């Protein structure tokens, strides 16, 4: 569902942000990408949404080339970023309404928006409240609600739990597991090793644009992911 084949990106200033990345995420699978800042995690997600163009290789969403047919490819994926990008002067429902219409769903009623917002755990009072008053956790939940309403088979999340308090992060993870059970393919970049070990079916560690390690849940069962991560980070 989410596939990178020798995906590379070199910026205009010469920096090689991504070097021949290969990964494959199937439906119902969560793939956690770990790595320090600047490792290439966000670049990877940017390439899938065609925010930037690759200098080599291919990014595919449900088999559609993200560079050659970006508009088609983006139909198959939803995006949640570290700081969910919403219009502060709009209410939660207005934001949902706008983004779901952009995703091509124009027939939704107010009650359906409310239902999804309940599902992600937003309090009722927040439904018609301006988003600028929301906490980061509430914004992330609304971001997930937008992604859910898009009904895309793939979900790409860029450090979505960063800055969330433990309770909000736990609730967020629960939501991801629900989506996984629904058969979504999920790619999540994160710094949170413990959360990654908890939910990931596959964990990849990136360093300086290179995927230096990839292990499945079974392979990781016998290992201490934190030690493994630190070991890979130390190796030059």
């Amino acid at each position, binding site marked *: 569902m989410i596939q990178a084949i020798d995906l590379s990106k070199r910026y205009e200033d010469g920096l090689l942000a991504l070097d021949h990345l290969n990964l494959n995420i199937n439906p119902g699978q969560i793939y956690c990408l770990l790595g320090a800042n600047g490792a290439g995690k966000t670049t990877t997600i*940017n390439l899938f*949404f*065609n*925010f*930037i163009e690759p200098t080599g290789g291919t990014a595919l969403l449900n088999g559609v080339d993200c560079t050659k047919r970006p*508009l*088609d490819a*983006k*139909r198959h*994926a*939803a*995006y949640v*970023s570290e*700081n*969910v*990008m*919403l*219009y*502060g*002067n*709009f209410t939660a429902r*207005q934001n949902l309404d*706008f*983004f779901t*219409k*952009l*995703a*091509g769903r*124009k027939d939704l009623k107010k009650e359906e928006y409310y239902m999804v917002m309940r599902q992600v755990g937003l309090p009722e009072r927040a439904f018609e409240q301006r988003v600028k008053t929301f906490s980061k956790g509430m914004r992330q939940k609304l971001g997930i609600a*937008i992604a859910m309403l*898009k009904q895309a088979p793939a979900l790409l999340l860029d450090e979505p739990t960063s800055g969330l308090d433990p309770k909000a992060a736990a609730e967020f993870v629960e939501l991801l597991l629900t989506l996984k059970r629904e058969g979504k393919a999920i790619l999540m970049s994160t710094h949170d090793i413990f959360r990654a070990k908890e939910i990931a079916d596959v964990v990849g560690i990136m360093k300086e644009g290179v995927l230096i390690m990839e292990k499945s849940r079974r392979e990781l069962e016998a290992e201490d992911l934190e030690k493994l991560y630190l070991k890979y980070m130390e190796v030059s």
Partner: protein
Amino acid sequence: MLGPLIKKEILENIVSYRFPLFLVIVALLIPTSLYVNHLEYRKRVSDYSEQVRLADEALRSSRLIDIHMGSIPLKGFHPPAPLSVFAGGFENSLPRYYEFQPAGPKEGETSVGDESVLSILGKFDYLFIVQMVVSLVVLLFASNLVAGEKELGTLRGILSNSVARPTILLAKLIGGFVAVWLPFIIAFLLGMIVLSAGSFPLLTGANPLSVLLIFLATSLFILMYFTLGLLVSASTPRVGSAQVATLLIWIVLQLVIPKVSDMVAALAYPVKTETVVSLQKSMIVKTLEEERGKLLGREYERIFGRGAPLTTDPTPRPGLNEWNTIKSDADSRFRERKADQVRQVEDAHRREKHVQQTIAGTLSLLSPGAAFTRLITDICATGEIDNEKYRNAVSLHQQTLDAALFSHISKTTLIFPGGGSASSSSIGELIDLQNLPTFSVGRATLSEVLNGNWGSILSIIFWLLATFALAHVRFLKYDVR
């Protein structure tokens, strides 16, 4: 996909500070300026009527000799243009009237002296508000559209969906423009209500069409500046840098280019000043008068003998018929030569000025603000076209008066070969002063305005299309990271 994006743009602008702020600015400034300028216009109309009445009265009680001696000047007044309430243009810097004399028209005073020194900064009228306030505010608002969304991060949210970038840009243009156009429409309508309430002749003659043209031209101008702001926004990564860039662009387009184009034209094609031309004309008249005086003096002495007194007594005497024939012939010849030479000087000066103005005008079209000013002032009959019409009307009226009046008043000066001179005045036939042709200035028709402003209209449309095309190119490559 365009619909939700446009709706979002409009809603976002309306619920933000921009819409109410812009609404307050234009709804306060436009009706106020129209109200104040309407009061001023009524005063000018009343002054004009009073001056015309007084001039008529003076003419009725005057004798031909008073006109000849210049003690009762024949005045032609410039009627105030009703639409000057929108754009003062040349209205206050033009002579309020011309005095028509045998020697030629003489400029009367202007209204500039009636104004405060602050008017140097530009008259506070609708044109000034749109040019200096609306354009800047619109530019600043538009400069936020792309860079602002990038900073907020929402642009990534939008682009994570199957939405083409040109669609987003078009939605920003339409939605964003509607959000600034609506306050303008409200302010404009309020202004019309204010004018109607003050019994302004809004629905008289071509005024409704002219006002509609002003509205359409302003809408186009606002759209053009909005698109320019969008271009800057799509070319800069941050709102701060976009705003600095828009300010610089605005200064260059609105303030620098129009001023520099006049300077460049003056340097590239210098033209004699009005004072020099006036002196040249005076010199021609003086030289010809002297030549005629010498010729007549010589002939007078030849016919009547040295020392014969100059008299206009028509009693037959030897040589009188010959003298009358020579004098009449000389008068007619010198009048023609004077008219011809003066016309040559005026035509040459007009041609030179026209070339200089064409250079300045063409250069100034690089500035959409200058193009807009030319268009609006011409629609309001306070621009270059009506300025030219006024001067032509003066010239024509002078010719009419020369034929109907001044040619029948003959002042004869004799310069004798042996030294000394004598002069006398005579009136050829009885002239009814009440039936003299009255001075009138025709206003430019709308088709004349449009014909004379193709350059201005094309300049604004060029800026609109070019900036949108460039914004499109820039946005396709816009880095949303």
